[in-house]
């Protein structure tokens, strides 16, 4: 175990969450730490990391009160800052790899922080509200540790934490990937969604429909859509369910063996520090630990007999065998909603039912579920039949895993920082390292440019931008932004001239983006 923890430590990643409103008194500094990874680091080290970060934040705030520090590039480390909630900061310290300096994607790392925070808020509400509920901080710490360690376990490859690097420069975390559907299928989907929402009885239901790992329809606000979509892709889609069953069981098996995998180190180390905290926070009773739900816990969702997905994460209902339905928080309205997920083949439908509309908890909810399926089935167009038709239509229209591959191009399209589409990862892997490094650098530049524009002129934030770079290996690395839409592209075979490259972009733009990026 000791070996493993050394391993993770030597990985050179540190992640901390702290609250600037806490522990401002001398001697109470520990109180501001809400989370630290790795947890088995001595408090002195933890405090020094946090102290440095806090100092930088305070300093930079003098010049930019609204947007303080974003990143510090030291010689061997990058510090990535993210102010998740006001005065609650998440800081990630990443060691720079020797081979490719400055190639770590700061923006991608910040997106990781943002993602884990939005997921946490989705299931637990804001950190601030949690802190207000239980001022000692024990509650939020006991929730944060398992949550973030579960989240980080997704980045585990073997024993190493594989954080986003230049390899991932042609993908955008924190966006949704949409399935392109024809009008007819879209109408069918809408019809299904409306029937489902209406049959649930209450008017303020929301829904999210996914096909495979792609979003088909949503009635949620954009932010909620992104967090729920992220969660669904991580844990709910058929792909997530099956991968949990196979690859994860492989890890479990190794777990059972003598070798200690990294995750157990993480969780164990978490509990170690938990104990440390608990020893201080005596107010927290022992049982609290059991009540902490771990929505990101692997391999805990399964498809029930009725087609609804169920999980034992939230425990089972007293008396009955049915498992408790999770409750999620909507960001905009702070409404609490029951999350009901239904799966039919590749189709996943998430229905959010307001908690306030269901009177007697789990029983009432199962009634709604019955209604959703049954009530509609009694009539001649059963929802399940509709579902069948929708699934069939979407399957027919879907081009498979590589549906959005455009031969000759490796691209990433981002629309409004919410929706993205990219070449399939397998295709991106074929790119040379040089191209990826160049693209990674280019993205960094574009992000800087974007942010600079944001801060200077708020009105015309989406100006146009066009950058073409010739990489060391002769590949063209291109970025274009236009009215909130971004296009990144690597053309390895388009050698020769700039004109040729720009022509290729034009063609792509006309063909796949309805001419958004056509400059002239």
């Amino acid at each position: 175990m000791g070996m493993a923890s050394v391993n993770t430590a030597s990985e050179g990643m540190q992640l901390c969450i702290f609250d600037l409103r806490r522990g401002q008194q001398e001697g109470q500094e520990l109180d501001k730490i809400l989370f630290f990874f790795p947890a088995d680091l001595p408090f002195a080290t933890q405090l020094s990391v946090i102290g440095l970060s806090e100092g930088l934040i305070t300093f930079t705030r003098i010049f930019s009160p609204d947007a303080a520090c974003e990143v510090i590039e030291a010689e061997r480390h990058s510090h990535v800052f993210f102010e998740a909630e006001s005065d609650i900061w998440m800081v990630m310290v990443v060691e720079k790899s020797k081979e490719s300096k400055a190639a770590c994607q700061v923006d991608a790392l910040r997106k990781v922080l943002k993602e884990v925070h939005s997921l946490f808020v989705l299931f637990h509400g804001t950190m601030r509200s949690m802190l207000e509920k239980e001022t000692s901080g024990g509650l939020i710490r006991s929730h944060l540790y398992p949550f973030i360690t579960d989240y980080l376990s997704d980045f585990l490859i073997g024993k190493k934490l594989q954080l986003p690097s230049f390899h991932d420069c042609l993908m955008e975390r924190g966006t949704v990937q949409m399935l392109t559907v024809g009008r007819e299928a879209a109408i069918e989907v809408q019809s299904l969604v409306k029937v489902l929402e209406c049959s649930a009885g209450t008017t303020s239901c929301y829904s999210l429909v996914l096909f495979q790992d792609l979003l088909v329809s949503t009635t949620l606000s954009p932010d909620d859509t992104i967090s729920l979509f992220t969660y669904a892709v991580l844990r709910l889609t058929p792909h997530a369910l099956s991968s949990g069953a196979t690859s994860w069981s492989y890890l479990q098996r190794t777990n059972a063996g003598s070798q200690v995998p990294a995750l157990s180190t993480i969780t164990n180390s978490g509990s170690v520090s938990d104990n440390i905290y608990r020893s201080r926070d005596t107010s927290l009773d022992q049982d609290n630990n059991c009540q902490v739900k771990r929505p990101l816990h692997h391999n805990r969702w399964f498809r029930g007999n009725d087609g609804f997905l169920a999980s034992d994460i939230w425990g089972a209902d007293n008396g009955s065998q049915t498992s408790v339905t999770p409750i999620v928080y909507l960001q905009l309205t702070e409404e609490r909603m029951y999350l009901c997920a239904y799966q039919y083949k590749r189709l996943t439908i998430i229905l959010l039912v307001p908690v306030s509309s269901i009177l007697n908890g789990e029983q009432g909810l199962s009634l709604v579920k019955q209604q959703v399926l049954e009530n509609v089935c009694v009539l001649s167009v059963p929802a399940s039949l509709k579902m069948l038709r929708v699934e069939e239509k979407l399957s027919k229209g879907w081009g498979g895993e590589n549906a959005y591959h455009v031969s000759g191009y490796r691209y990433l399209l981002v629309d409004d920082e919410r929706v993205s589409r990219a070449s399939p990862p397998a295709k991106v892997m074929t790119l040379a390292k040089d191209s990826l490094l160049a693209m990674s650098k280019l993205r960094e530049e574009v992000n800087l440019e974007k942010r600079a524009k944001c801060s200077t002129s708020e009105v015309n934030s989406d100006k146009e931008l066009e950058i073409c770079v010739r990489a060391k290996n002769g590949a063209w690395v291109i970025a274009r932004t236009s009215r909130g839409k971004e296009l990144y592209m690597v053309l390895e075979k388009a050698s020769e001239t700039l004109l040729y490259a720009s022509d290729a972009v034009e063609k792509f733009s006309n063909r796949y983006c309805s001419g958004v990026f056509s400059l002239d």
Partner: protein
Amino acid sequence: MKERNTTSTLKRILVNCSSQAKEYGGCVAKKVPEVERDMCLKEFLALKNCMQNVCLTSVFCYIKNFSMSANASSSQLTVGLSGSGGLSHAYVQYPPLKCNLPGSRGLYYDDANKLLLSPTSDQVFSWKTVPFSPHVAATADYINEGPVLSIRYSLDAKSIAVHRSNQEIQFFQRETRETFTHMCKSESESILGFFWTDCPVCDLVVVKTSGLDLLTVSFTSKSVNLVETKKLSVNWYVYTHGSRLVLLASGMQCKTLTGFQLSSVGIVRLPRFEMVMAKSDANSKPVLAAEDVFIITVYGRIYCLQIDRVAMQLHSYRFYRDAVVQQGSLPMFSSKISVSVVDNVLLVHQVDARVSILYDIFEDSRAPISAPLPLLLRGLPQSHTGRPVNVGESLDRNSSNHELMFYGDDWTFLVPDLICDVASKSVWKIHLDLEVISSSSSEVPSNLEFLQRRKLEASKTKQLCLAITRAFILERRPVTMVAKAIDVLVSSYSHSVKTCSNLKETKVDEASASVGTNASNSSRSAKDESRVGVGDKSFNLSASDSDDQSREIDSRDLQKSGKENLLGAESSRGEVQSSSLHTQQLGLGNNQLNANNSERQDSQLTSPAISPDEMYSCVFVPVGEEIVGDPSYLVAIIVEFLRSTNSEKIKVRPNIYVFTIQLLVRYERFAELSLLIINKVLEPSKEVAMQLLESGHQNPQMRKLALDMLRQLSLHHDYVTLLVQDGCYLEALRYARKHKVTSVRPSLFLEAALASKDSQHLAAVLRFFSDFIAGFRNTPEYQDYFRILNEMNTGLAV
């Protein structure tokens, strides 16, 4: 509405009819749970009679929801009140057509020409019954004195044939009053009857005991020529012009029938078939009479209904080109039965029970569409207390001329929808009250289906359908149910659009037909062509109806021509195209023009189909105004509507999209809206883009979508203007150059550039326009901005 104020009447009914109610209730209770339609009918009729008597003492009542629909239980009787008029599914309108003439020797009905004929000693008076009007004047024609068995006008209305005796038919030409007589050749056979036909080979068919004689009649030679004889022993025959079908009965029991269809397409001999007749005991052999067989035409299909007195059932048979298929039976509650067809609805009059039962035999359903109720008399003048007259109740005794026995012995039911009261020599036309029929049905989708099939009173039916749909949505019924109802309306509309071209052609046909009679042969072949077209179309049309339609005898166009070419001549497909092509096409062209003019109004009236536009303005908009709160229900229904139109491939006008956007924006459902736009569920159009722009004040995302839409629609001018408005004047310039947009005023760009306070940009814009637009340098605009630019630059320099 109808259930209001029912308590007092109900109470009275319950007091007065307790014994009947008890009996009926007991009967139903005994059979529950096997509730069937028509069960306990005897008890029900007794109860109904009693109730009606009670009701009539104050106000009349109407019985709704009789247990006819399969799932409703028989005990579910609702008695309602109405203050305005009687309610019954079918009624006759006062006043009737009076055919009372001094010296009349009886009334005859010529169903081919829809004429009522009343011969006197030397004249025959005729009244047109289509269009039905009680005030139509009689036309008189001279005929010789003599006995009259029947009279029929020829199809071109130029001559009259009078059946004088078993051996003799006399012909009169109306204009020249020429006459001659056709006699039966042999003494052994006698003439049973005759009818004129539009069959290509003959004009007249004489039915004799020995078979059919197909004859041509020539007044020039004053003779008839025998074309063909179909040898067959005939006891009696039945013929209707609507079906062009003659059924010949033979055999001991007269239940072996042979059919011939003599249509303009030719003669089709149907296979001989046996009618089903139950025996009361082994020895009795009931004989089928001519009165027991009815030929009816419903939805262009030909059926035969046959009374089986022993089984008390009305068997139905459907005719196909090469087969006769028994379809099932309807119940009989009376020994005397008659049938009418009104607007493709079958009315079975149970004469002794004094009720009529309605059937819609569109989809082989044998379920009646409403309770057995009597026909009602409507529109009686005020002196008759304005009270509708019900079951057999004779009218005000004071006015003896109106004395009328409903379902009396004097009633003769004429094909298809007339009642002739022989005693009072008056003719009534049966109407359906669709409002009552539909209000007695709780299944809205099937009810709409029924209404959409009605062709008479189309505009009224359409209004009724709209009202039903509105109410259905306002009641917030489950979306799937509403979707079904919408499907019905949309598919009905799509059907009517598809047949619209057919309709047009028929019109052309009709127009050229009238020309044909005026200008003789010249346009006849033109008419032929269009007739062929109609034939093909209606074939397609019926192909979608049901099972083995291809074999079906298609009487649709027969019916049509029967309706439209009342007295006009009809030529047939087989006729030789003799005239010159030139005149023919000229004639056709002219007619088409006329036909189109008249068609616009007509087609609106011939079908109650509801166009998407009407759905929008008469359903969605009013409902949108009334529904308060969350619009998602209404949006759900609009999505269902779009799904329906999309699957029927019907174009929807943008106004419905604009309406949807307004609904969603009002409740800030931007996520849904953008999804609908991106997926083109709301199809892109300028109107939609403009509506999105308007919502752009609330949500910038909408503005972006609108801009994208404008660009995709290639609405360059609007796109460029909006870009400039957004301050993206450089991008706008580039776009303008690429797409050669010159309609946007340069000053807009210049103003925007000036607003950005960037002298380089201003200079660039100025330079661009002086290059892009010839002569721009000479405009005052150029001068102004050039000066401004200079000032800016000098200002900078200083």
